């Protein structure tokens, strides 16, 4: 039985090897990236609060909340109920002043903003004035989290479809460069200057008002079907128009962009070399063209998604899709400040998450970007 002993230098080498193992490296990268992004989000949310609170609007939200709870609790307490209105009013005002002092609403605005920031980062967004969640809550966080799945469903399906269909079609076009379809896509690519809600209006006009094939808006039939299968079909039917509007608004430009990347990369010398070697065209495409363009494609895609996140707001409004965007629109109509500030913060989070995920994917597909090194 031999005993392995480590000299100090061997120990260092071993530690180095462990440090270099890809799991640790990726782990460290993720942590670092999360930290930087978190800082970015903190600054972003802080700026949002700064803009919102310029006229003291966030303070108003909290003050309203305090007034609400104190009035309620005194009105519902047995002693409060038996008081005459005048003493009760004085008591309520005193309590409110005390509570405002306790919550630090009399401190300077800079300190207050930092307090709002910590609340916002914990998604403690206060209570809505008018809008209630379907479960009956007035908590902004609950209202927004309840609407989030609808937005994710709409965005997720349309984005994935957009990504895969445009990459696939762009590959085909780059193969038949100069063909009729290629020219058509080039000619149509300026159509992406028009936002998705705008296409939405036309789609509603044609398919809902004209042919009466698809619903005008909403997410499910009313009343919603009871069995799961019918429910899914109904959602799918409602998803078709807003989804196509989102798809249509960026489809041609993204196909055009990807196609251009493919063409630029397929004129590289190593691709000619591979052709000369007589490799199968499929292999050339996959290994010599698609692989090196992936980082570009992902960058492009990430910018597109970031643009669409906030753009979906209008699409949801036009299609009465019960997501975040429509809630924000309703909040504008009802002047529901907590919801407006809250959704801005949620959007900031969503954007940061998108940036993080795409960043990670970027690093994963591009060997030149060494994760964690």
């Amino acid at each position, binding site marked *: 039985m031999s005993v392995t002993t480590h000299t100090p230098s061997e120990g260092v080498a071993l530690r180095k090897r462990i440090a270099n193992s890809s799991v640790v490296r990726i782990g460290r990268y993720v942590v670092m990236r999360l930290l930087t992004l978190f800082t970015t989000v903190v600054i972003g949310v802080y700026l949002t609060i700064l803009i919102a609170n310029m006229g003291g609007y966030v303070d108003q939200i909290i003050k309203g909340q305090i007034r609400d709870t104190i009035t309620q609790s005194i009105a519902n307490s047995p002693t409060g109920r038996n008081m005459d209105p005048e003493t009760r009013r004085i008591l309520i005002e005193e309590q409110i002043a005390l509570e405002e002092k306790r919550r630090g609403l009399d401190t300077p605005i800079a300190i207050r903003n930092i307090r709002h920031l910590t609340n916002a980062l914990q998604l403690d967004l206060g209570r809505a004035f008018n809008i209630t969640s379907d479960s009956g809550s007035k908590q902004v966080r609950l209202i927004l989290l309840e609407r989030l799945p609808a937005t994710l469903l709409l965005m997720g399906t349309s984005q994935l479809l957009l990504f895969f269909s445009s990459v696939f079609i762009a590959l085909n076009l780059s193969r038949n460069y100069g063909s009729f379809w290629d020219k058509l896509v080039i000619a149509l690519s300026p159509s992406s*200057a028009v*936002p998705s809600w705008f296409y939405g209006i036309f789609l509603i006009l044609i398919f809902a008002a004209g042919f009466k094939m698809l619903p005008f808006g909403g997410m499910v039939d009313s009343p919603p079907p009871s069995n799961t299968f019918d429910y899914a079909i109904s959602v799918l039917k409602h998803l078709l128009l807003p989804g196509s509007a989102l798809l249509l608004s960026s489809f041609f430009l993204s196909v055009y962009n990807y196609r251009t990347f493919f063409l630029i990369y397929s004129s590289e010398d190593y691709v000619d070399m591979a052709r000369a070697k007589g490799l199968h065209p499929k292999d050339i495409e996959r290994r010599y063209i698609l692989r090196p363009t992936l980082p570009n494609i992902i960058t492009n895609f990430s910018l597109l998604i970031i643009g669409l996140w906030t753009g979906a707001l209008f699409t949801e409004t036009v299609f009465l899709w019960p997501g975040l965007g429509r809630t924000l629109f309703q909040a504008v109509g009802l002047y529901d400040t907590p919801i407006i500030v809250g959704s801005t913060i949620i959007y900031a989070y969503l954007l940061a998450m998108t940036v993080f995920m795409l960043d990670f994917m970027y690093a994963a597909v591009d060997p030149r970007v060494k994760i964690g090194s």
Partner: protein
Amino acid sequence: MNNLQASFKKLLQYPSALVGIFAIGLLVVVSAYAMITIPYPEAIRLWRGGEEVWYRNPKFAPPAWFNLFSSKKFSESFAVGTMDGGMNKVVTPGTDGITTYEMTYEFDFSYDVYPQDMLLYIDATFNEKQPFTSVEWITPDGRTIRISNFVVGDQYTYRFSQDDKLVAKLRAEEVIPALFSAPDSDTVLKGIYKLVVIGTTFEPGANMDVEFVFHGQVYGLAGTDHARRDLTLPLLWGAPVALAFGLMAAIGTSMMTMIIAAVGTWYGSWVDQLIQRITEVNLVLPFFAIMIMIGTFYSRSIWVILSATILLSIFTGAILAYRAVFLQVKESMYVEAAKAYGASNTRIIFVYLIPRMIPLLIPSLVQAVPAFVFLEASLAVIGLGDPILPTWGKIIQDAQANGALYKGYYYWVLEPAALLMITGLAFAFLGFALDRIFNPRLREV
């Protein structure tokens, strides 16, 4: 200069660029026409005007050219009065200061659809004794229908469709169809109709005038909205607003982006780092949500929105693209030479760095215009448009709020939508062609 001329010549080879230039030119002409014929204060007065300005127009009326495409003919709207001589007025003075006025109007009604409504606006001058009026309606088949008798004040409005007594007298459900069809029939009786208004004043020096307002089913070149407003006004005035907003935002954003990128690359170190960090934070800021916040909390004025848009659009991906090019230019010989002769930092940035970027700037500037034009429309559609200005986005918002798509008022959405589309696509087409000319790498593929 020669370079620019050559680029312009190349531009003319792109049909899409020609289409774009033509459409932009047309929009500029329309804007100039709108601003000259309807001066700004007048446009605002009309746009914000209510019933008192627009009472002559029907509600929700499609444009008159709808008849060209429809097998059923819709009646056109008109308004005539005795004041401007559009209506016949015969004054017969009687004894004891009593004067009789016979005011008549004949018109040919050869449409297939009943009009919306008819109104009489009676304007009388008198001291004490109120004038008296009776109204008669003579149909093409020679029937005379006594519409109503009433005593009028200074201003009196008689609305045919709202007269319950007349409904009872005609034994019909609604007044207008009954007046425009033969007895016991529910189709339109075409022919010459005659309105007779006989007024009597009982004092010397009294007078009476009538305006007959006929609310048809179609109106003018562009139709009307829920507030009876003629849509040609916001459609015309939307052009200068959209162009100004789009161009100012695009120019402001691209100039600022370029200057900041140049400054960052030139000074390097922490300035450059700071700019990059700001760009990262800006990427996470939800643009539309913040615009909505600004619109709801602070101001919806187009100037505030414009400034906020520019501020939020400076630090975007474009800054990184410019930075990459500036880094190359920074190392070039002529910048070295400028440094050697002792040029100041500002001189190098504005005289040597930035001019090199113009070819890259022009296409991106033109391509940015549609996004800003639609941004203004998007904000208007969710109710955050400028409260005073008539814009295309506001028309769409009004239409959406009144359920235009459900109720079939398609013209109301399609007209501003078409104009927005033309504006957006014109700049997109032009920018696209410019991009191909100034970025030769794209031209090859």
